[in-house]
């Protein structure tokens, strides 16, 4: 500002310029204010943006008794196996399961989940539930998703899968350890997933 003024008066009459120079004894604070506000902006942004996002995760209690666990209908279960190289293997139910693979994109995993929801909706119709926060009665398609990351999966894959759960509003999902049977299943999907009754229970509860 001050510079502009001197330029203006400099362009004008020369005699006046000398006098104004004599008179101005105060310091121009404009650059100081500029600097001050720049720093304020910096500190404001860094303090509020520094807070990271979080994703809450609740794991099941380690010792749930068998009689406490509620049985789940097989036709509502969707199992996602998070494999190597950002691939997802999935199968429905337990008996005569067919393995398919997809990726983490919107057309991939999300479509699988939504398709399953549609299927469950067609078979079991929508079920009532209470909204967790507002306690409003609602209707929704209930599916149970089991997420089982393999040893080759990355942490990002798990977070992506959990993201997908919140996007598609899957109300019941759980992260479980992968079983030997399923690892073999990925290696050789043609052989099918042969759960016997015990392995089935073990795979479902472990």
């Amino acid at each position, binding site marked *: 500002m001050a510079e502009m003024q001197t330029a203006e008066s400099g362009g004008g009459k020369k005699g006046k310029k000398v006098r104004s120079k004599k008179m101005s004894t105060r310091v121009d*604070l404009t650059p100081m204010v500029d600097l*001050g506000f720049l*720093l304020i902006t910096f500190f*404001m942004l860094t303090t509020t943006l520094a807070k990271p*996002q979080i994703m809450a*995760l609740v794991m099941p209690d380690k010792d749930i008794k068998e009689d406490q666990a509620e049985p789940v209908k097989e036709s509502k279960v969707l199992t996602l196996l998070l494999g190597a190289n950002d691939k997802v293997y999935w199968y429905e139910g337990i008996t005569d399961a067919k393995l398919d693979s997809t990726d983490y994109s919107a057309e991939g995993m999300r479509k699988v989940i939504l398709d399953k929801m549609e299927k469950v909706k067609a078979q079991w119709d929508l079920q009532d539930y209470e909204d967790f926060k507002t306690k409003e009665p609602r209707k*929704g398609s209930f599916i149970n998703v089991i997420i089982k990351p393999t040893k*080759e999966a990355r*942490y990002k894959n798990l977070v992506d899968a959990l993201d997908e759960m919140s996007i598609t509003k899957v109300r019941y999902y759980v992260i479980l350890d992968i079983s030997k049977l399923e690892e073999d299943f990925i290696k050789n999907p043609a052989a099918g997933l042969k759960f016997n009754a015990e392995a089935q229970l073990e795979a479902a509860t472990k």
Partner: protein
Amino acid sequence: MPKHKPKRGNPTIDMTAMCDVAFLLLTFFMLTAKAKPQETVIVDTPSSISETKLPDAGTLTILIAKDGKIFLDMAGQHTRKSLIDDVNSRFQMGLTEEEKIDFSNAGSFGVPRNRLKQWLDADNPERAKFPTDGIPVDTADINKNELADWIHNARLAQFRMKQDGKVKDEYVMVVKADKDTPYPAVQKVINTLVDINVNKFNLITSMESGPEKKGKEVPKTGE
């Protein structure tokens, strides 16, 4: 002509008041801003659509590096002091008072318990170069699991501090892992947490970037 001159006057605004306000605010933000603690390991968190912010309460952070090494960080000097007092006396680590204070001011650490004394003795530039193996996690035997011991006792220490009125809240459990961490390392940590009855914890994620987020619109099905 001489009449016009005084009328024009000086268009300069007095900046002193504005400057005062600016620097007052600057001082305020500088004092309230928390200094970013020194990170022993760089962790690049995966992105997610979650927009929940980390609560203000003290956090107990488990860092999992890209190579699966595990580090711990906890807030609160009082709690850390109480924790190291307890650990020192139980395992006879022979830490001096100075080392204990050093521990309570240090950031994240990732050394086995038997080398903690050496790590604390190292000065700051050396400490950055100190070979870190991460905190040992033995999922088979809970009594040998150092991570479980640290977390359990840190939470107890925080609880004692809460009863003394030195802190307001109990620890918020936070897991901060790199996006390329292999899952078995994460699994070890999660299993350890479940083993010591910490069933609820938070995963730190970063904001999803623009174009990807657009693709993640919430579909209407099922609702």
